[in-house]
């Protein structure tokens, strides 16, 4: 047997084991409502990148909707538009738009609601994290949008990382993000930004937005990341980081010290931790945007990584998922799921207690 074929055999064996581990998780039954949110006829929802609820059950959707534009005939080409933030009440009735025509709403990535019902948006292209108060007034901005665009744009990918200093993906020590993906808070209000697809790090800020530190850079060892796609924090201030490229969720303490990891959940693209005395974690093995014949299932686990079950698969029908980018699990077994591929938000009711 040649080295190459031995290697191939080893790879296929490993893949087989991983497959078995994933598929052995029990299926969780569920029902869905594919139109929980009633949009006015004047709005056509695009890619549903972010969905989140506040303590009253109001629903916020940060979406890639509209016309992303680069101007011409200007000193430099400037990027505008392309994303909007919508608000609904708990019955799904449309309430209004937050941050309309915002300078930094270019490529919606995530929306999260903090314990005080403040609304936080994460924009992948403007590399901005914006905090709105519950009424929609802007309170704080982390990061800064690039002043102008380069045309033609350099290729995406790790080589483009490192903006704000340092080597590509080296984990810049600043609040200049590069394609950030998510935001979370610990029990004292410190802010953690998943940063992201350009950089590969977690950036930590105090409750007032002062940069404290960041940890991680591009790599595969514990404490390193390959495409950070999400972040969530439990009641004990453990930080769960969706390390999508390495097919794992890494768990850190609040200072960034590596503690453990959760595996056999595919490639985590969206994560959520439920509130309450017994917390659970949801993570989505989202299908790539260019393929609905692979993955797509969502896992439900204990915080220690024990897999309790999984549900769904990639596809375009109700109860199927088109590249899930957000999970809201404030309701425990009632989930809102935002999909990039299917331009919709589904409200799921899981068949669990």
């Amino acid at each position: 047997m040649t080295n190459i074929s031995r290697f191939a055999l080893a790879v296929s064996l490993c893949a087989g084991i991983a497959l078995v581990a994933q598929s052995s998780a029990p299926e969780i039954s569920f029902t869905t409502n594919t139109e929980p949110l009633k949009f006015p006829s004047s709005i056509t929802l695009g890619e549903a990148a972010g969905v989140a609820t506040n303590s009253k059950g109001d629903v916020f959707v940060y979406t890639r909707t509209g016309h992303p534009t680069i101007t011409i005939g200007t000193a430099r080409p400037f990027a505008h538009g392309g994303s909007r933030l919508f608000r609904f009440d708990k019955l799904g009735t449309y309430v209004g738009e937050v941050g309309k025509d915002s300078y930094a709403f270019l490529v919606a990535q995530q929306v999260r609601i903090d314990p005080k019902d403040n609304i936080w948006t994460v924009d992948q292209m403007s590399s901005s994290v914006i905090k709105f108060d519950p009424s929609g007034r802007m309170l704080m901005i982390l990061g800064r949008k690039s002043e102008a665009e380069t045309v033609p744009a350099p290729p995406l990918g790790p080589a483009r990382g490192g903006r704000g200093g340092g080597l590509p993906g080296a984990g810049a020590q600043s609040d200049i993000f590069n394609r950030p993906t998510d935001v979370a808070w610990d029990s004292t209000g410190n802010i953690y930004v998943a940063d992201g697809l350009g950089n590969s790090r977690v950036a930590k800020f105090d409750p007032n937005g002062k940069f404290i530190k960041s940890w991680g850079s591009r790599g595969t060892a514990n404490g390193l990341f390959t495409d950070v796609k999400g972040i969530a924090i439990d009641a004990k201030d453990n930080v769960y980081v969706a390390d999508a490229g390495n097919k794992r969720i890494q768990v850190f303490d609040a200072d960034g010290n590596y503690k453990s990891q959760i595996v056999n959940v595919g490639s985590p693209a969206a994560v959520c931790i439920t509130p309450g005395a017994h917390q659970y974690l949801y993570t989505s093995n989202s299908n790539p945007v260019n393929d609905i014949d692979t993955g797509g299932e969502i896992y439900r686990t204990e915080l220690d990584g024990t897999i309790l079950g999984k549900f769904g698969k990639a596809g375009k029908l109700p109860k199927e998922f088109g590249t899930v980018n957000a999970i809201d699990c404030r309701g425990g077994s009632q989930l809102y799921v935002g999909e990039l591929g299917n331009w919709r938000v589904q409200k799921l009711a899981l068949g669990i207690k």
Partner: protein
Amino acid sequence: MPWTARNPLLCLALALLSTAGPTFAQKAKAQNVPEIPYTSVPNFLKLPPGLYLGESMGVATNSKGHVFVYTRSANTRLFEFDPAGNFLREIGAGSYGFEFAHSVRVDSEDNIWVVDEGSNLVIKMNPAGRVIMVLGHRPEVVAGAVATNAPTPPAEKYTFSRPTDVAWDPQGNIFVSDGYGNNRVVKYDKNGRFLKQVGSEKAGNGKDQFNLPHGIAVDARGNVYVADRSNHRMQVLDNDLVPKTVYDNIGDSWTVCVSPGPHQYLYTSNSNPNGNAPGTWENTGEIYKMELDGTILGRFGHASKQLGGFQVAHMLDCRNPDEILVAEIESWRVQKLMFKPLIAAPVAAKPAAKPDAAKPAATRTTGAK
């Protein structure tokens, strides 16, 4: 007079080529095709003040006769009109998928489908206008402005490259012509799952190949008709996308339409090319009416900017073969052509009567060309 008749030697050469070469060699246009008289309804679509069509890329009707127009305005927009051409509403204003219109079609359940060659998407909307399926995916906006002359990457199952048109068979399977970047036809099941493709990202003129598949239609038996525009032909495929035959005596097939009903007709437009170079108007611009087997029944229309003539016809609606709708790129309008009853008897005439809203209709007959 068609150019071939003035060039008998070239005709002969082409005839020899077609006998000596493979089946897929290009033939000359059909000769002595009867002209079908028609009338173009003046001022058919009535837009409210302040609203304009841009390049009219797509036109389609639903079962109630409502007219849908997918147009390149300041933004790409989708409008709905009643059967009389009165404006009803705009659908999908500000949609993330509306960037550069190419086609709109309405399926047997009155769902509205648009094909956008800017966002690389095929979008299915229910009759109310709500998005219920998205095929393909928009290129990553975060990638910014990309070079436009890059080669087309290998064709993927769920990624289009400037798709052009969509059609369905009686079972609801979805057929997409794709397009300017890729050169293929893709078949999906009714739920949007990839089944098969023919062609690839590479252009070619052989069997199983396309060079700018620009329009697509499916008949009641599931046969697929593909406007293989830059190959100067229409390709007919069976339901599994296996090539059956070609119709290559109809000029450049820009768009195809198959009428419903027990006796289906096939329409194709040899549209005049963009740019209107000298000589093009004399040899292009006509639309052919055919049997599904390729028998040409007649032709109508010619290149012109006047009412009754076509300025780069881009799409046809033939739900009612007696009332054909024609969307034109360069005249920014949709014409409604009446084939019977004729308002006036055909007269041999100057090309294209002038539009005149005061008169009931401009009658256009041909035969001069």
